């Protein structure tokens, strides 16, 4: 009796271990080794909140449209001087890392007309979404309680928030981050 019980227990343990080991083996891509989290922010390590916002061209875009890419979301406005300061760098990043799977997305807290003429004048090459209340709320949902600009969030390929930053992005910091997550 005791022997039977023992054998059964061993069998169940072995079964569970087997399940676990094979699960770990097969789910390798889903469980990427996680670099130490950098920066601070309430959303780090969480799945990105969803949103659906209109682009300056009038189509609706949500983060799922870029699934599989590393997303750098940048909240900005044409009337925000620090935002304008960092945009050339964002364009450079998009050009430099596009082939490695980076997608920069700008979200403007602004009126569509100003954004359209800004995009045309400066030839902004990455997608720009625009809105007012909805953009503000998206920004808050992304951990930006006060809705300040510029505000940037880096989201890895699996949709997990890896970096949140208020203010002008520093070139060294972002390139180091991108080398970790791309």
């Amino acid at each position, binding site marked *: 009796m005791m022997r039977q019980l023992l054998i059964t227990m061993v069998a169940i343990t072995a079964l569970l271990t087997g399940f*676990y080991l094979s699960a770990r083996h097969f*789910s390798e891509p889903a469980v990427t080794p996680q670099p130490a989290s950098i920066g601070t922010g309430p959303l780090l390590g969480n799945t990105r909140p969803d949103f659906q916002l209109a682009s300056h061209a009038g189509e609706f875009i949500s983060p799922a449209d870029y699934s599989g890419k590393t997303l750098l979301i940048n909240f900005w406005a044409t009337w925000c001087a620090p935002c304008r300061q960092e945009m050339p760098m964002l*364009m450079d990043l998009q050009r430099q890392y596009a082939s490695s799977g980076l997608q920069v997305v700008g979200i403007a807290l602004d009126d569509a007309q100003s954004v359209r003429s800004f995009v045309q004048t400066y030839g902004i090459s990455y997608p720009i979404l625009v809105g007012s209340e909805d953009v503000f709320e998206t920004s808050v949902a992304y*951990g930006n309680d006060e809705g300040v600009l510029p505000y940037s969030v880096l989201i890895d390929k699996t949709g997990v928030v890896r970096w949140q930053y208020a203010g002008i992005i520093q070139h060294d910091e972002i390139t180091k981050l991108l080398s970790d997550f791309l």
Partner: protein
Amino acid sequence: MMKNKNFKGCFSLLLTTLLLFLSTLATAIEFDEIREYGDVFEVSATASDRQQIEVSWKIADGFYLYNNKFLRFKTETAGVILGEAVIPPGKPVFDDLLGEEVIKFHDKLTISLPLESVAPGVELVSLKLRSQGCMEDVFCYPPTDQLLVVNLPAAAQATLPEASSQAATSLADVFNTSVTAPGQDAINDEPALPADEAFVYEAISYSAETILVRFTSQPGYYLYRDKLNFTVSGDSGFEVSSVDLPEGTIKDDPEFGPVEVYFGLIEVPVHINRTAGPEQTISLQADYQGCRDGDICYPPQTSTVELSMPAASAPTPGKKQSKPPSDGQATGAQQSEQDVLAKMLLSNPSGALFAFFIAGILLAFTPCVFPMVPILSGIIAGQGERMTTSRAFWLSLVYVLAMAVTYTVAGVLAGLFGQNLQALFQNPWILGFFIAIFIALAFSMFGFFELQLPSRLQTRLTEASNQQKGGSLTGVAVMGFLSALIVGPCVAPPLAAALIVIGASGSALLGGAALFALSMGMGVPLILFGVSAGKLVPKAGPWMDSIKAVFGIALLALAIWMLERIVQGPVILLLWGVLAIASGVYLGALESIPQGASGWKRLWKSLGLVLLLLGTIEIIGAASGGDDWMKPLKSIRSGSPVNSVEHVTFQRIKSLDDLDSAVERVNQSGQAAMLDFYADWCVECIRMERNTFGEPEIQKLFAEIKPLQADVTENDNIDQALMQKYGVIGPPAILFFDRQGREMPAFRLVGYFEADEFAKHLQNVLEAQ
């Protein structure tokens, strides 16, 4: 193209210089260092006469305000017209980045707002000041509205009426005394002010759905934050939806410990739910309580102010602020339980599998698993003399393994194809078939007949397996399989978590392993029970018959319990009544006890009588139209059929379109919405309806979160489309929609919740709006 290049060249240069500059300057802002707008740009306003209002901002170091298109001033006070604001010229500077001249104000900005006309009698003016500012070289705030109320001096010829506020009779007025705080001597020589002079209550309509309230405490007096409460008195169709109380000062009260209090002046936006309608006068009642510092406390006070609310053309959404309240959690920061579990499963599989196993053991003590106890023990007891402990163990193990594998496979299929197998099996015919089997099993327990296969078939089977073991092991496996599918359909958070993992990572194996660990956990108490049943059940004799009879009754109870998913209301009560009475009679409730009978006999008889009584109550309940067997006499007590009370607040919806329009309607009346997925076969849903939703505290919250219900009992294409849209595997699941009609994934609930827990969650949902 050329232009483009120039821009980039020019900017690259600028960028490099800036980067060099920035790298020497640590500008990284920690999240908790981002100050609130009102804290950085502190605004105040005064009016020395009825000609103009002076508005001034105190600007924190390192920040500035712009004079740009966002700088705007508005009032919604009836009878007041603002003139053109006089803004100091400032010093225009050319901003390279913006490509234009801008005017920035540091330290301080004072503007004067002329009042072009003020109706006589107006004493309070509400102001909405929109402005926009930045932290130098770091970030900018979005354009932000600040609300203020300004006191106007009375017109020269007018006497000073006590505003529009009429201090209503309070207890203090009636007794004309103040209450001395216990344990404190009056240390202040000055006589205490009457309550309505110590605390001045004023209110003004700010917009069609917002009232600004101002409380002024005289120096040395304070109000308790948690005692402030506002209600609209009378039957006006207006009601208070929420109150944005500012943060107070923490005061270490000798009696209550640290409490939050207000000294001086506070302004409180009070948001109103209303229907459309013309301008209307309403009464806003304030309940408050305060003290003189270190001295005396006043009893709770009630004052009412009459104010006129502007017309609302269409039903207005309750409150729409340009900024969320600072204490409101960002929606994204909260995570639902199953998301946490799913994330844990992905990051730490071994720990998570163990957690699932433990969760399974806990789940075993819920109505999901209860019904399996009589089935398994019935099978084991049914084996009679042939039962040994090891055999009981093997039978239980096989039963549990079959159940676990079924749960796992069903779960993985649900995850991969979004099809809920358990829901498919909740078909009246299948349920009916099973109920028949349970009844047959029960009768065989009572010894009416032996439940056996035709003897010819039995011999063949016996020959085939050469041992009687194989046959009953297969039987018990089949029972385990069917039990998992039909008897205990449960969508508990761990199950949902495993399914999310499967959906999100595509790792069916990991999700499956989690489900298996969960089900095995659920099986552990079952195995223990089965083994002890096998050990304890005597081999033969009258005792054996009694125990079999008990299992027989348990199986009948199970049949009734399952029948509840098909037949509702009084019929179930009647059946419970009949079962209870029959059991009572079986226990000898109606037989007389012979002289000198054993104590046991007397005990059984008393138990039988109790059952008899319970059964009678159930039948009375059935006759009076009750439909909750847990509370059979509820319908008699409340004097009306129960169901009208319990379901009244739930608006039923069916399709996605229904949902959209229902949520839109709810939003139009300024409420948030809640969608409850329900099915007749969902045990936990019925428990929620009975124990949780009916509670008065929940009903009160339902005034702000309108409950909708999707009945997915049929599980047809429309139901499935609805569930799939939100990734819901099956009931019980509750979704929330905010006042803009968007689903709030972080607040999803799966599983059963007690009233207080649920109330707390509803509060959180409201705060996150």
